[in-house]
């Protein structure tokens, strides 16, 4: 019955598939693709078993590395196997939800436990599994102090996280995504609260979980509304849903009035979910606190992979977001605000791990801004580069923290580069910082640039471009503030208060013995930082190389003719762009559509049309700047011509109607300077990055003789309360505390007393009434035998009198 109705639904969808556009064909994928989540859950199982059998070695870590490495290898194999021409692949493990209550469309709900594999999926899974493998190897050494205690637990949650992430990214429907979404949330909670005896860790874990609940509510509501409105939550059906395709067409033409409100709200609800998971402005407060977890966790979950789930969700649901008039502008603005706010806070922090956390929030803001300014390519590329260099930065910070007994204060560490055994960490940190700061020719430079340039290209978003440039300056400054303070300058190290490790303990003991022999040795000399071992160094080296190599993806992998799911033909520039354009996140911007090389001379329009190579389109190849696109004759004049080139729909030329962002009245330029944004941005943001680094050098390295004091101190004291406010995170936490937490606590107490007094009181009243009545008649039970006897006598007498009375009346009657 269920299968039958699903079949009907499928045939219905096929029948309704848009004949004009290119319906998304899906093919049956290879069953071994399931090995990706399968291996991760196997790893979790192994860790459970080793916990049961009380394994007290590093075995679970190495098995985890093996399992996750296998998952990575499977992902690579999937990439090789995947043929984009065949459309997305579907692998369904089993029927998970299948509910039918009628024969019509939208009267059955199906959600198989299955996977939807397209280029976006593979793109995401490549760095998720790859980084997970590397970080697991790193953690095998980093967590070595906990071997035999929390080691198994740590790697169990680690594996479970990768499994959940695989469900989230690979899942073939929104229910699978939701499963993974909640799964990663759970693992995040478990791992932030890994040191569960530490109160701050427990608080941070709870905060992360509760703040994420707010976002998850949005996601759940979006999911429901999606089903109500489109009648499906399966990607394969959704992306060929003619209703949705119609919406996207309407949105491309700028005609949002055609799209019902319900269809537009879906994106806004999903967006709330993305904001929660990816720590965007109103809901970002949990991420900095999440640094209470072990550093490998911060690197994997709270920097590289889980927090990009929101970006993934929006990229995956990009058609739905396009169909909403407000969703993408809101995403753009919130992303920008988050980027700026987090950068300002990051500039004033002293805990290096927290600085990295705020920079993660800030960079996530960039990604959201990228999505909002219609460049999923830029966002996806930034996700990838950021995953590598931020994981690298976190792992370097972790190595420092591990080696200096938990010391994270940049005022108490200095000159680590010059210490013995710290070279790889230092180089890794330098590469990571250069990427984050966006020094020209680094991966971070190119990915960030794409987003900023696109902000200038997209009409109405120039302000966002300017704010993002300012943020880039701040980013370069605070990044190198850390590097110059901790890794350069005079050699100085003050240990943290974290002597929990057996290894460190042994080193200390040895030192003590040494000190006893040499009474002149001061207390400071007791501490010996222990340089990282082979596992940490190997991982850092690989990630350093990967961060550099990610630059290459900007130059390779472009294809001349990529067909998007909407049947558009796009020329792509680089690998990330290719991967995105072949997936549901495809979006054609004028820039993607054609290189700017031809934009500035007349007659370019015809060439543009050539470059489209849209088969079946009538192209009038005259020398005139007129192009027939999709049957619409469009005038293309001079520079502004390339707006027209996107099938005459996306962004309209002057006088050719309105695009999704309104009509274009001026040529592309950076703030009216007449510069082509994409070329200009290379120079502008390159200069900005170097200015930021220079400022950091001037204030934090040049002339610094001690670890604690630098030139910035003098400047900071002149800024009044601003640095203090920024250090206290602009009191956002306090604000939330006062506006949300305290009222909730008050309401909680009021409810408690209402329950105690009114509800419980009512129930207790029913209990007290019998007691009260009993109290009134209890004195009759005096305990005196004579009392009972008299009572009995009286009773019998009364009874007799009644009997006599009855008999008398009966006798009288007869």
């Amino acid at each position, binding site marked *: 019955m269920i299968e039958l109705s699903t079949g009907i639904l499928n045939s219905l969808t096929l029948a309704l598939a848009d004949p004009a556009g290119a319906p998304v064909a899906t093919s049956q994928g290879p069953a071994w693709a399931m090995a990706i989540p399968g291996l991760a859950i196997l790893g979790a199982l192994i860790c459970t078993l080793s916990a049961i059998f009380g394994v007290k070695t590093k075995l679970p870590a190495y098995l985890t590395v093996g399992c996750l490495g296998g998952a990575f290898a499977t992902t690579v194999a999937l990439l090789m196997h995947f043929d984009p021409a065949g459309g997305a692949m579907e692998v369904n493990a089993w029927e998970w939800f299948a509910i039918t209550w009628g024969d019509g469309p939208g009267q059955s709900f199906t959600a198989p436990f299955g996977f939807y594999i397209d280029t976006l999926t593979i793109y995401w899974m490549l760095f998720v599994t790859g980084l997970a493998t590397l970080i697991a190897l790193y953690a095998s050494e980093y967590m070595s102090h906990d071997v035999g205690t929390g080691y198994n637990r740590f790697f169990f949650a680690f594996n479970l996280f990768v499994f959940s992430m695989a469900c989230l990214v690979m899942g073939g429907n929104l229910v699978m995504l939701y499963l993974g979404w909640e799964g990663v949330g759970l693992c995040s909670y478990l791992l932030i609260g890994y040191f569960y005896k530490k109160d701050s860790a427990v608080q941070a874990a709870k905060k992360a979980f509760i703040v994420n609940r707010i976002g998850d509510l949005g996601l759940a509501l979006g999911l429901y509304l999606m089903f109500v409105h489109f009648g499906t939550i399966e990607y394969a059906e959704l992306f060929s849903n003619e209703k949705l395709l119609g919406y996207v067409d309407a949105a491309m033409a700028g005609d949002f009035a055609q799209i019902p409100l319900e269809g537009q709200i879906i994106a806004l609800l999903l967006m709330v979910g993305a904001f929660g998971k990816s720590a965007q402005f109103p809901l970002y407060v949990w991420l900095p606190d999440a640094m209470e977890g072990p550093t490998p966790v911060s690197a994997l979950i709270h920097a590289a992979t889980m927090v990009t789930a929101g970006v993934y969700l929006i990229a995956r649901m990009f058609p739905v977001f396009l169909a909403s008039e407000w969703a993408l502008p809101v995403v753009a603005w919130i992303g920008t605000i988050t980027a700026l706010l987090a950068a300002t806070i990051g500039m004033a922090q002293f805990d290096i791990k927290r600085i990295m956390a705020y920079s993660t929030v800030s960079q996530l803001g960039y990604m959201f801004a990228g999505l909002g300014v219609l460049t999923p390519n830029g966002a996806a590329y930034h996700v990838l580069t950021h995953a590598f260099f931020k994981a690298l930065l976190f792992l370097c910070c972790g190595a420092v923290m591990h080696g200096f007994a938990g010391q994270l204060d940049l005022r108490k560490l200095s000159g680590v580069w010059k210490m013995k055994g710290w070279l790889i960490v230092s180089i890794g940190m330098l590469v990571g910082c250069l990427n984050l700061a966006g020094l020209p020719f680094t991966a971070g430079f190119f990915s960030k640039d794409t987003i900023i340039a696109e902000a200038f290209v997209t009409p109405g978003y120039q302000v966002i471009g300017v704010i993002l440039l300012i943020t880039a300056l701040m980013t370069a400054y605070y990044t190198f503030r850390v590097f110059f303070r901790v890794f350069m300058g005079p050699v100085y190290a003050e240990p943290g208060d974290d002597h929990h490790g057996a290894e460190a303990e042994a080193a200390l003991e040895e030192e003590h013995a040494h000190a006893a022999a040499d009474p002149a040795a001061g207390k400071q000399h007791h501490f010996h930082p222990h340089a990282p071992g082979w596992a940490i160094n190997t991982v850092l080296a690989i990630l350093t190389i990967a961060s550099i190599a990610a630059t290459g993806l900007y130059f390779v992998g472009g294809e001349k003719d990529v067909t998007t799911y909407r049947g558009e033909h796009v020329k792509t520039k680089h690998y990330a762009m290719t991967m995105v354009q072949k997936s549901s996140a495809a979006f054609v911007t004028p820039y993607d559509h054609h290189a700017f090389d031809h934009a500035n001379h007349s007659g370019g329009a015809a060439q543009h049309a050539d470059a489209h190579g849209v088969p079946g389109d009538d192209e009038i190849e005259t020398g005139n700047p007129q192009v027939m696109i999709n049957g619409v004759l469009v005038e293309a004049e001079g520079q502004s011509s390339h707006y027209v080139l996107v099938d005459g729909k996306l962004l309209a030329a002057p006088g050719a109607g309105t695009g999704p962002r309104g009509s274009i009245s001026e040529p592309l330029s950076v703030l009216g300077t007449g510069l082509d944004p994409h070329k200009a941005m290379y120079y502008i943001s390159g200069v900005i990055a170097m200015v930021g680094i220079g400022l950091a050098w001037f204030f934090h390295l040049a002339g610094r003789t001690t670890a604690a004091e630098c030139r910035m101190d003098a400047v900071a004291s002149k800024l009044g309360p601003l640095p203090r406010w920024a250090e206290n995170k602009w009191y956002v936490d306090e604000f939330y505390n006062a506006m949300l937490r305290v009222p909730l606590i008050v309401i909680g107490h009021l409810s408690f007393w209402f329950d105690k007094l009114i509800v419980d009181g009512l129930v207790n009243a029913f209990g007290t009434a019998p007691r009260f009545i009993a109290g009134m008649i209890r004195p009759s*039970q005096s*305990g005196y*035998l004579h009392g009972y006897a008299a009572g009995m006598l009286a009773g019998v007498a009364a009874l007799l009198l009644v009997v006599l009375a009855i008999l*008398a009346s009966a*006798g009288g009657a007869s």
Partner: protein
Amino acid sequence: MLSDVLSGVTLAQTGFPDLMGGVTLAHYLFVSAAMFVLGLVGFVTRRNLIIMFLCTELMFQAAGIALVAFGRYHLDLDGQTFVIFVLTVAAAEAAMALALTVLLFRRRESLSADEWRELSG
């Protein structure tokens, strides 16, 4: 009015007993009632456990007299048979009740019924 009632109860013989005449059922019943009331009053008013016990015995015997009288009146031996049983039971009960009284006395060194108030509510 009372005589009307009694006339309903006493079935065969009607009218108030003739004090100067022979001994009738009513005489026995008056004796029985008097004994019963004596026992009852004694039970309610006295505190001594043994006296109270004796009062209950008195009420027993009053009932016995009534039974025998009725049996004789109806020329039926059932009443007397029943009384034999009652006497037997009363004898057994007397043995137990006295034993209990001794035990109770040992507990409180007193025979007063007021010493035992555990059932007070």
